[in-house]
């Protein structure tokens, strides 16, 4: 029987408004995979806005992040770098989006357990039955040689993820 190459490590479904979600608390992300992928569906309570920016930290660290991105707003497009101190990783729905809709997010981290700097990429979309629906692709770097043992998500505007937002952490092996 072939070894499993794509394994669900952890899933979290929120039951109440939550400011921070951490996968691998206490440094418990297994180190025996090649890559990690995180998929999530989320919405925040950011008032009157159809979207909200999200940011990441690894191992509790909020420093040494850099990022470049391209994005669409529904009415235009743009690109920039190191937005929100380089920790911005994408967008999701805010409270101004169509009721009961959630943004979709994918984050890929190759060689997360290695001893070189950690590059990672994201793609994300917000869901909104109006012009202001956003899409983003980003490429980021965490300039640390530490293995990634925990990953935390927050919004850049200090809002809360709403109930029923869910997060899935997968481990990927190359054999």
């Amino acid at each position, binding site marked *: 029987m072939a070894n499993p190459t794509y394994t669900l*490590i*952890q899933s*979290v479904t*929120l039951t*109440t*408004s*939550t*400011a*921070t*979600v*951490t*996968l*691998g*608390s*206490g440094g*418990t*992300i*297994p180190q025996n995979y090649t890559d990690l992928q995180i998929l999530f569906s989320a919405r925040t309570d950011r008032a009157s806005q159809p979207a909200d*920016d999200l*940011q990441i930290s690894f191992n509790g660290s*909020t420093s040494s992040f850099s990022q470049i991105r391209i994005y669409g707003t529904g009415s235009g497009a*743009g690109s*920039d770098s190191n*937005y*929100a*101190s380089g920790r*911005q990783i994408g967008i999701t729905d805010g409270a101004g989006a169509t009721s009961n809709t959630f943004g979709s997010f994918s984050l890929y981290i190759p060689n997360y357990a290695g001893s070189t700097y950690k590059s990672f990429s994201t793609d994300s979309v917000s869901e909104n039955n109006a012009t202001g629906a956003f899409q983003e692709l980003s490429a980021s770097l965490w300039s640390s040689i530490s293995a990634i043992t925990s990953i935390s998500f*927050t919004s*850049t*505007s*200090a809002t*809360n993820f709403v109930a029923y937002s869910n997060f899935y*952490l997968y481990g990927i092996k190359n054999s």
Partner: protein
Amino acid sequence: MTTDTPIAVEANCETGEITSRPLTAEEIAAAKAAAAQYEADAKAKADADAAIAKAKASAAAKLAALGLTADEVAALVG
């Protein structure tokens, strides 16, 4: 306005246990500081984008005054 303390949800990948706890005062302060920085970054970006748009409009008007067609102006500063 809510006075509820923000919470953190934490998943232990070894045990699968999911716990929640109130954010500490230090964590709340750090989140507020980061949000303030984010707002400042967003405003700076919006101001820069507006300045570029204004400069492009001014350039287009000056080029049109020199006799360039609309297509020629769009080719230069569209």
